[in-house]
């Protein structure tokens, strides 16, 4: 029988307002083995921890139960406190009487009763806890960054600067990401390329950074400190080592009808191409879908003109296996598909474009060479309408329930740039709310209104009707003036909602990182651990975690890098001691457990046993605790009950069940 101490936290009024903590203390005192119980306003505070330590020493406690917030919050805190007081940290159990009790119940009687039961379950469990010792595993001092946009580049640079090897895997032919498609950036109107390309060059030139462009992550195994990743290097059909990047092949390529991905399909590119002029690496790829040689076997012009002899039609995809200590997801975003928003006539009229398309239109390297013109007839528009929240904040079957966060600011930027360059163009913005939290953001928006005379109208647009004369009739609300507005426009720009890049769910599955219903990766804690995935060793950088602008992305990228550096700086990691363990005397050696183990952590050995006097050699399961992650699949598969999980043993869980059902 353990000597158990119970510590009930008030959490200020968070718990104490709904749970009668004094009564909890008095009630649990009567539980078997409980030799000490007390309450305190903030158990996690230094004073609270000191209280626990003192009780452990004075009462010679063998196990403690802290009734407080979720173990996901402070289990580690209390374990450390116990350890400092000389108690094995795994002799601590948490009864979650905040998230699972006080915060969701209103009736004090009910909540108190439940808190007592939760405490009893924890007490019953801690009676059966044992002194566990974490093992150690080595850390591979190399990081993987998935995604080569500004988030991935910044993370990689920061990690590399700390002296660790980093690989960037980018699925397109060049790093640069969405930021490379932008013309200017808010709130200072810097040229996007001017500030991005130096970083791209730095990344490519850094001796610690290795780029895998035109590559994708194929599979991931292992765990924090010891990931093993298969990377598919897609065939470029151009030898990276020989190509000089002269561009002659692209010039001569006869197939020039493929839509340019970089220019959002607004113009075309050759079948052999680099996405944009500053691409890194400056080595083209052949798009097999449009290449004449690939489709018909005839042509081969690029091979003929390439003086470096870099073209190689026989190239195959290659799989590379690398080991990493940490993985950063920086997969970024795309705009949503607008097929369902027929009322905005996006598919019908070339003059209705998304904001990202407008970036390309405004850019000197874009389809119109930077001239603001209508894509239908090349004419200069006189009247431009911006529609905000297209697909954002939509709680319906068509859009996204969240705010895309960047649209208000980039629309102000667009409006300002247009008014600046083309003062005779009228700009109208239909908005629901203008959201400008951020340094110099509201000032920026006000400049658009006050200095540039952009016409902001509060109200959504209901329909855009293309007119026979080529103009667009925009029918919207002016809620402040109480009018329905019907106005003609020459161009309409849709602030289209953003969503995580399409492949992210697959990547999350490979990494066993959790992901929400909108395909944003979930952080370990929404406030306190925003750049870590709940899966140890996996970190989040950029929009894959939630909508954010460039400065926020860069900050998060740096934060993710720091977390990675912190991890890679360690030579060894303490492993979770809650691993499976097989009772040699009970084991049948039947291999059922091995069949369900996702980590290959179970092996078999012929062992000499002494089973109550019977000495024999038996084939028995042996768990490699460095590989075991403690899921417990084997424990249930085991027919004889030989396999058990430390920290969550059969008897411990049953004791909790019994205590709850008592």
């Amino acid at each position, binding site marked *: 029988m353990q000597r158990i101490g119970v510590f009930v936290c008030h959490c200020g009024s968070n718990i104490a307002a709904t749970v009668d903590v004094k009564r909890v203390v008095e009630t649990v005192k009567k539980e078997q083995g409980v030799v000490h119980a007390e309450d305190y306003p903030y158990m996690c505070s230094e004073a609270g921890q000191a209280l626990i330590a003192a009780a452990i020493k004075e009462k010679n406690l063998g196990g403690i139960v802290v009734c407080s917030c*979720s*173990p*996901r919050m402070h289990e580690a805190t209390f374990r450390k406190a116990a350890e400092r007081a000389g108690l094995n940290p795994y002799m601590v159990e948490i009864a*979650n009487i*905040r*998230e*699972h*009790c006080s*915060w*969701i*119940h*209103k*009736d004090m009687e*009910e*909540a108190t*009763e*439940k808190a007592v*039961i*939760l405490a009893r*379950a924890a007490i019953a469990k801690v009676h059966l806890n044992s002194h566990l010792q974490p093992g150690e595993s080595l850390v591979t001092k190399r990081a993987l960054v998935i995604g080569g946009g500004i988030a991935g580049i910044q993370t990689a640079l920061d990690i590399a600067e700390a002296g660790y090897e980093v690989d960037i895997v980018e699925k397109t032919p060049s790093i640069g990401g969405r930021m490379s498609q932008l013309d200017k950036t808010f709130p200072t109107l810097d040229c996007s390329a001017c500030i991005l390309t130096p970083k791209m060059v730095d990344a490519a030139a850094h001796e610690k950074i290795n780029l895998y462009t035109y590559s994708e992550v194929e599979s991931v195994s292992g765990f924090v400190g010891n990931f093993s990743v298969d990377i598919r290097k897609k065939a470029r059909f151009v030898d990276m080592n020989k190509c000089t990047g002269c561009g002659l092949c692209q010039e001569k390529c006869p197939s020039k009808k493929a839509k340019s991905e970089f220019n959002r399909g607004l113009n075309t590119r050759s079948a052999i191409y680099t996405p944009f002029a500053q691409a890194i690496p400056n080595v083209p790829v052949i798009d097999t879908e449009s290449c004449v040689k690939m489709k018909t076997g005839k042509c081969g012009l690029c091979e003929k003109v390439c003086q470096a002899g870099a073209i190689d039609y026989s190239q195959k995809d290659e799989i590379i296996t690398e080991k990493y200590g940490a993985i950063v997801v920086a997969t970024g975003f795309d705009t949503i598909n607008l097929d369902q928003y027929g009322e905005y006539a996006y598919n019908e009229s070339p003059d209705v474009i998304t904001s990202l398309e407008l970036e390309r239109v405004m850019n000197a390297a874009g389809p119109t060479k930077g001239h603001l013109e209508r894509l239908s007839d090349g004419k200069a528009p006189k009247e431009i309408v911006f529609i905000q929240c297209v697909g954002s904040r939509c709680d319906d079957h068509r859009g996204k329930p969240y705010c895309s966060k960047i649209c208000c600011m980039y629309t102000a930027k667009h409006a300002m740039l247009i008014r600046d360059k083309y003062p005779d163009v009228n700009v109208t913005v239909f908005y629901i709310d203008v959201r400008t939290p951020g340094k110099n953001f509201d000032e920026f928006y006000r400049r658009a209104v006050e200095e540039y005379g952009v016409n902001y109208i509060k109200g959504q647009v209901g329909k855009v009707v293309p007119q026979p004369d080529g103009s667009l009739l925009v029918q919207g609300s002016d809620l402040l003036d109480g009018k329905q507005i019907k106005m003609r426009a020459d161009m309409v720009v849709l602030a289209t909602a953003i969503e995580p890049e399409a492949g992210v769910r697959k990547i*999350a*599955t490979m990494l*066993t990182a*959790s*992901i*929400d*219903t909108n395909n944003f990766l*979930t952080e370990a804690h929404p406030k306190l651990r925003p750049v870590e995935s*709940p*899966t140890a060793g996996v970190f989040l950088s950029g929009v894959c975690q939630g909508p954010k602008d460039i400065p926020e992305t860069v900050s998060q990228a740096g934060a993710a890098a720091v977390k990675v550096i912190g991890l890679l700086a360690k030579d060894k990691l303490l492993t979770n001691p*809650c691993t499976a363990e097989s009772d040699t005397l009970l084991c049948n050696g039947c291999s059922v457990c091995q069949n*369900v183990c*996702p980590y290959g952590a179970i092996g078999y050995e012929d062992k000499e046993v002494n089973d109550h006097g019977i000495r024999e050699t038996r084939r028995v399961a042996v768990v490699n605790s460095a590989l075991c*992650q*403690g*899921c*417990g*699949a084997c*424990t*249930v*598969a085991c027919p004889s009950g030989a396999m058990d*999980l430390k920290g*969550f043993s*059969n008897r411990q*869980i*049953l004791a*909790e*069940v*019994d205590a*709850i*059902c*008592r």
Partner: protein
Amino acid sequence: MPVEKEFRPKIVAFCCNWCSYAGADLAGSSRLGYPADVKIIRVPCSCRVNPMFILRAFEKGADGVILCGCHPGDCHYSTGNYYARRRMTLLFSLLDYLGVEEGRTRVEWVSAAEGVKFSTVMNEFVDKIRSLGENVRLGDLRCKN
């Protein structure tokens, strides 16, 4: 007339540490209430839940048992919930076969981001159990009379 005491069921919820327990935490921090009848037991993964735990809960007087784990495909341990799904499918089917009322057992996949779902599921489940009333059958299904 004697006043009948309101039936307060005993409900055990096994929640995996990575998704559903976090989902329950989120329900808590978002103040999305559900009846106090539900008591959560944290397990590392839904695949840690032995059918024996569920039967034991019923034997000890539970009126309903629910198992929550990560969505299929999103298991922290890659494959745990797939095994749990098969085990529970068969266990529930066997319990139905024995004539234990359907609805006393349930499996739900709740991610760490689905606080709303967690609360909704628990409210529904408690309603269901309340409508079924006290569980007697599993306690009575004995070898010896």
